């Protein structure tokens, strides 16, 4: 089940739990997503059979670009939306400026290239880490890491 059919773009999965129907929380989330220019697909809905039972919903958010996707997540997080179980990344904290903690997710880019009979240093080469900051994620060279930076660890929760 989704909003507009045939939607394409960036996606991420979120989950919601609670008395989502009676509280109109699900309606609020769907309306918010669509008002901000996104779309959604309901993947799995479990509605409790007894009055006290909570419901849970797994839904995919669809956005035309990173900016809209970030806005959707920011807007619906207060309504209880959390990354889908399979999308939770592990994180760790940088303990020293410019020092990459073990097990941090890194991408290693070439540092030198043999060109015109000499080895040239590659600007912006070297190891890069994935930093989570203020609701945004960016790759940052290890030399630019600062104590306290929250880094993604491993590859769980990443999409290519």
């Amino acid at each position, binding site marked *: 089940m989704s909003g507009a059919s045939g939607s394409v773009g960036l996606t991420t999965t979120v989950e919601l*739990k*609670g008395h989502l129907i009676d*509280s*109109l*929380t699900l309606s609020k989330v769907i309306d918010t997503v669509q008002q901000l220019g996104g779309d959604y697909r309901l993947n799995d809905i479990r509605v409790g059979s007894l009055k006290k039972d909570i419901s849970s919903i797994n839904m995919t958010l669809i956005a035309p670009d990173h900016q809209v996707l970030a806005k959707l997540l920011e807007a619906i997080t*207060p309504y*209880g939306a*959390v990354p889908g179980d399979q999308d939770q990344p592990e994180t760790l904290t940088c303990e020293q400026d410019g020092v990459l903690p073990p097990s941090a997710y890194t991408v290693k880019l070439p540092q030198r290239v043999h060109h015109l009979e000499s080895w040239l240093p590659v600007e912006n080469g070297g190891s890069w880490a994935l930093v989570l900051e203020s609701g945004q994620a960016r790759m940052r060279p290890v030399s630019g890491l600062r104590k306290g930076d929250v880094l993604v660890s491993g590859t769980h929760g990443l999409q290519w």
Partner: protein
Amino acid sequence: MSSVSAKTWVSPVGETPFSKKGKPTILMCPPTYFTVAYAINPWMEEAPPCDEELAKRQWDNLYKAITEQAGADVELLEPVDGLPDLVFTANASFVHNNTAVIAHYKHPERRPEEPVCAQWFERQGFKVVRMPDHIFFEGAGDALTWQDRVFAGYKTRTDIASHSLLTAATDLPVLSMELINPRYYHIDVCLCPLADGHLIYSPDAFDEYGRAVVEANVPADKLIPVTPEEAARFACNAVNINDTVIFNQGSSKLAEDLKARGFKVVQVDLSEFLKAGGSSKCLTLRIG
């Protein structure tokens, strides 16, 4: 227009360790150390200095209204120096039957109150439930039992994630209500369940979804809307014991609406507590 029947009033907290007393029981904390020492809500930011001696007299008047006019018993929580907001016992926990779900405060200034309250409830024989460290929940200030369900506020102080945990601890369905006005930062400042299925609320404090939830759950003849002017005087922050409703002075329209439905009304001047963003309901917690 329906009228309240004290005979049909069921305790909103179920059967607790205090139920054997056979009369309503309220937890209060004397304002020995009450003052406005910091600003964690818009009322505190705007307030002129608090008159601590006047606050003590106002608290005494509320105590008398609860015990002498409403006929309830009061249990006292020992005040603690350095914890001025401990007087607001509504936040201490959410009580249902023998379970007390203890608050986990968003603002660090109030977090030292948590072990004080947890220990008190444990000593009284309640099963104490604590929230995980990353989930904020501000007790009965943000969760109000109405009939067989709970109207619970979220966003300003309490996280919506606490609501599923509240259901797990109490088996009560929770209706999550977004609080859209930072001045009405707890649901008990803008909504109040009353005897016989009545409910006071401030429509302006909720968005269209919140208003729709209230209207879907509460019959129209039991719903008592409060004007914005009277809501700003904390009219919704009322204490209801049987057919008596106690709230801050200066809300004549609400008083008339309640009397027309058969409630007895007691208005108490709580000006010094309003400076801290609280009124009669905030100063009390139904525990039996």
